[in-house]
């Protein structure tokens, strides 16, 4: 009885992994084969980047404020209040900023792509594109995955700046520090080993968000319920991938730089 339940579950999981590998291979192939859909790519960059900026900005700003408010009592107790800009900038740029912003993007972008492509599948638009001889992978998948791969790192950098600015304002609630001194301390406390690995991992976060959204949308079933499931599943899977990629990136960074 247990075998009957577990073995099909494993088989389905393995089949799904195989499907994902095949989908990713087809995505890579379609980047270089045929014409590139520039207008759709630019539209997706606008939809994904510009339309997510406000959400990312507000979240990053709040995170910067909250981190300073939470860190201050502990550092003051050790007489290390002057370390607040350094502590915030290193933790925000290395880890908190990229991961939180990627999770926000997974919630907004992966769900949106999953629901959009899922509803296109339900309403036979993907089939219509396919049978017309056009290539839905080239038009829908390549453009979206490349747009997230480029826009998530940009959003992450902007989010870092806004978060650090939020930290500056929070610091000035209790203490008094000029913006130029704060910026000097932040810049002095960061070097390329803080920024570069974090930036590189956001590229992979972006690719994972786009890929999972497209995969879940393309592989949704044909009922209307599947649109919601595709969106939900895209968020959960993309979030999980972000943590897995982060864990791998931290290990590689530790080996290379620390």
């Amino acid at each position, binding site marked *: 009885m247990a075998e009957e339940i577990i073995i099909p579950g494993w088989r389905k999981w393995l089949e799904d992994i195989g499907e994902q590998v095949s989908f990713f291979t087809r995505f890579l192939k379609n980047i270089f084969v045929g014409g590139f859909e520039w207008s759709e790519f630019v539209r997706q960059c606008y939809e994904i980047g510009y339309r997510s900026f406000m959400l990312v900005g507000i979240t990053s700003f709040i995170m910067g404020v909250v981190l300073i408010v939470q860190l201050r009592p502990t550092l003051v107790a050790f007489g290390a209040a002057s370390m607040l800009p350094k502590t915030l900038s290193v933790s925000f740029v290395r880890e908190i900023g990229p991961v939180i912003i990627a999770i926000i993007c997974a919630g907004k972008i992966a769900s949106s792509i999953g629901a959009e492509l899922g509803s*296109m599948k339900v*309403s036979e638009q993907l*089939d*219509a594109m*396919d*049978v*017309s*001889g*056009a*290539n839905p992978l080239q038009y829908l998948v390549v453009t979206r995955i490349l747009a997230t791969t480029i826009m998530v790192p940009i959003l992450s950098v902007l989010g870092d700046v806004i978060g650090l600015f939020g930290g500056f304002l929070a610091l000035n609630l209790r203490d008094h520090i000029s913006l130029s001194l704060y910026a000097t301390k932040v810049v002095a406390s960061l070097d390329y080993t803080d920024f570069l690995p974090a930036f590189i991992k956001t590229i992979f976060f972006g690719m994972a968000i786009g890929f999972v959204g497209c995969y879940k949308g393309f592989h949704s079933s044909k009922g209307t319920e599947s649109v919601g499931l595709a969106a939900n599943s895209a968020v959960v899977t993309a979030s999980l991938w972000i943590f897995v990629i982060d864990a791998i990136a931290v290990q590689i960074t530790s080996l290379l730089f620390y």
Partner: protein
Amino acid sequence: MEEEKTIAEPKQIKGNNEVVIEIKDLKKAFGSNEVLKDINLEVKRGENVVILGRSGVGKSVMIQCIVGMLIPDDGTLKVLGAEVAEMDDEELKELRMKIGFLFQSGALYDSMTVRENLEFPLTRVLKIDDQAELDKRVEEVLDSVGLEDAIDKLPSDLSGGMRKRAGLARTLIINPEIMLYDEPTTGLDPITSREISELILNMQKKYKTTSIIITHDMECARITADRVVIMDDGKYIEEGTFDSLKKSKNKIVQLFFKDIS
């Protein structure tokens, strides 16, 4: 059930006797569910073949096999002389450029206007970049289906009948040799259904296409069919002209025609 197939000659063969779709002993199953059991069909150039049958008997599966969306399990399926199951991606793409497929819902791309929907196959499939040429083709085909005023509307702003017309225009714009219609009048009121049926017939005359029309709508079948094929339980049970089938002794055929005077 009468399983013997009656092969009737088309009422009127508008082109020549060239067979453009040839199906022999076609079988297709999904798991243990045998959807197509033994399908045989020949469609000649210029002919309008209507396939009637209850829901779930495999009508849509059959036309999905014709266009290469599904691969048959067994049998022969030749379209324009080539075996579909043996085609590689490039050959399948070439074939699909010659086939128009009108989906039940119209399947218009939601995020694009009617103009952009129509330009999509022209720019992506026929690789036409000249805007003047695109405008000319779009306006001409929209004029044919009576949708000139909807050119810049989004699909969400169109009625059911208008969506079907726009879907038809999008398939006709690449001048296909073969048109496959999947329940073109489903969900429409009787007046609009009749308009769409007449439009299908007019477009077939204008663009000289060969058509397979899947429908439950007897009025659509009466208007469009040169030949009607009745399908049940994954097999053909009878075929002939619309008028000849009205006199059929087969009980399933009689059920379809019982309200037809």
